[in-house]
């Protein structure tokens, strides 16, 4: 971790090394807002001079990264320094959480009308040779909740948002499309809910 004034232009704008010009423009506008003299988030934090210094850096970053020639020169400089490219996302994923899923299994094409239910998800999980413990490790979700999810014990989930969130994490852990799986899975939930209302 470095001071703002010592950070790379990419870190400074909080964009990935490969960010597009449009992404850089957006990030720049956002950063300028955060570090404007009227910003609620920073006014009590920074002295006027510090604010000025950071803004100078932001302007430099923008000038260089939006100019193709300057950017590639800058990139070469970074590479030369052995600057490590920061992964843009998921700082929370620590080592050792990766589920060893066979490469071939991850791209299983499911027909469009495939119903992802508790039992079909369990089936997929088992056929991939993944046990619940591994999913728990990867998703941080208590094993008990995962069991309820597979058994469709909807009554144990205090609100829909949890069920949806857990199903999406579960799907992600198995490299399935989270949105698709959740939409399909929740059909059963809505059915159950309607039946209960009678």
């Amino acid at each position, binding site marked *: 971790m470095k001071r703002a004034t010592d950070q790379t232009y990419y870190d400074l704008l909080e964009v990935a090394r490969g960010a597009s010009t449009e992404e850089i423009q957006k990030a720049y506008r956002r950063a300028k807002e955060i570090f404007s003299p009227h910003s609620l*988030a920073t006014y009590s934090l920074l002295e006027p001079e510090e604010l000025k210094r950071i803004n100078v850096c932001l302007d430099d970053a923008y000038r260089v990264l939006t100019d193709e020639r300057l950017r590639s020169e800058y990139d070469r400089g970074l590479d030369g320094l052995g600057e490590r490219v920061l992964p843009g996302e998921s700082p929370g994923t620590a080592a050792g959480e990766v589920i060893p899923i066979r490469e071939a299994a991850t791209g299983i094409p499911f027909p469009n009308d495939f119903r992802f239910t508790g039992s079909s998800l369990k089936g997929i999980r088992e056929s991939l040779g993944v046990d619940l413990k591994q999913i728990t490790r990867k998703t941080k979700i208590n094993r008990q909740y995962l069991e309820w999810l597979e058994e469709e014990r909807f009554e144990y989930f205090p609100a829909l948002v949890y069920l949806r969130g857990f199903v999406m994490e579960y799907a992600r852990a198995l490299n399935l499309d989270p949105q698709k799986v959740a939409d399909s899975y929740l059909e059963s939930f809505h059915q159950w809910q309607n039946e209960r209302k009678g």
Partner: protein
Amino acid sequence: MMAPFSADQGDGSQGGKGRRSIWSIGGGKGGSGKTFIAVNLGICLSRFGEEVVLIDTDLGGANIHTLLGLSFPQRSLSDFINKRVRGIQDVVVDTDIPNLGLVVGAQDLLTAANPKEPQKRKLIRHINALDVDYVILDLGAGNSFNVLDFFLTSQNKILVVTPEPTCIENTYRFIKSAFFRKVKRVISHFGVKEIIETAMDQRNERGIKTPFDIIELAREIDESIGLTLERELDSFRPKLIVNQVRTKSDIDIGFSMRSAFLKYFGISMDYLGYIVYDNDVWQSIQKKKPLVLEFPQSRASKCINEITLKLIIDKPLLFDSER
């Protein structure tokens, strides 16, 4: 209805007895909604069948019981601090909510509100040994050592801020004090300790303001201490909730503070989410009935559920462009 407990909860990364997770709800300012959030998060967790104990560590200004509609219980932290009971489990009282226990703060200002260092250490030790799934600490306002030490003992260090200049300012001060307190305890080198001491004075003459300044100075003394401090900075990772948001730009304050934390302090912070300004919150407090039970369909309740989910799956809210 209580959810069933399986005998084996051992591999839940959060929850599961013997692996309790401590969440503290802090932030510098009074009135930002810490107690309200602590109570409602606790209830959300308890509804999964998790055993939760809420501890009102606001020594001197205890009021969780009021939000739960209870009168001040027979037993409180005072009894623990004054050694009238053997363990903290002896001052956990039942609430009307299944799986949710409560420890109310001390109300006798002179002794219990200012526990001596060994008493506080003992209290923290007992909190860490509580045989439940989750412990939620409702911290008092301000950044006294008492408040900071409870904050630092928890796995989820949650800050509550409202979109107001004063509250944001206090939050920065709080997090700075907490970090300095944290590193002061792990560093034994006299000279570096002195630098940290100096930094704790907001207007120190040496102009030491941020963790960066400390790390730089520590490095000059001993490279390895500098590295230790950097590691501490990396692992600190507080979490933020913006409460009482009224506009989209109020929501964005969380992201802006995240940037500011990172750029100015070098501290990575997770933005957990926001809670909308909602009349139902006010109503629930007036009625002394917790929001998520009294108005489960309210917008604010939904926000609290979202935040609980984010905490369970340990994933922060993402800015549009990060999704």
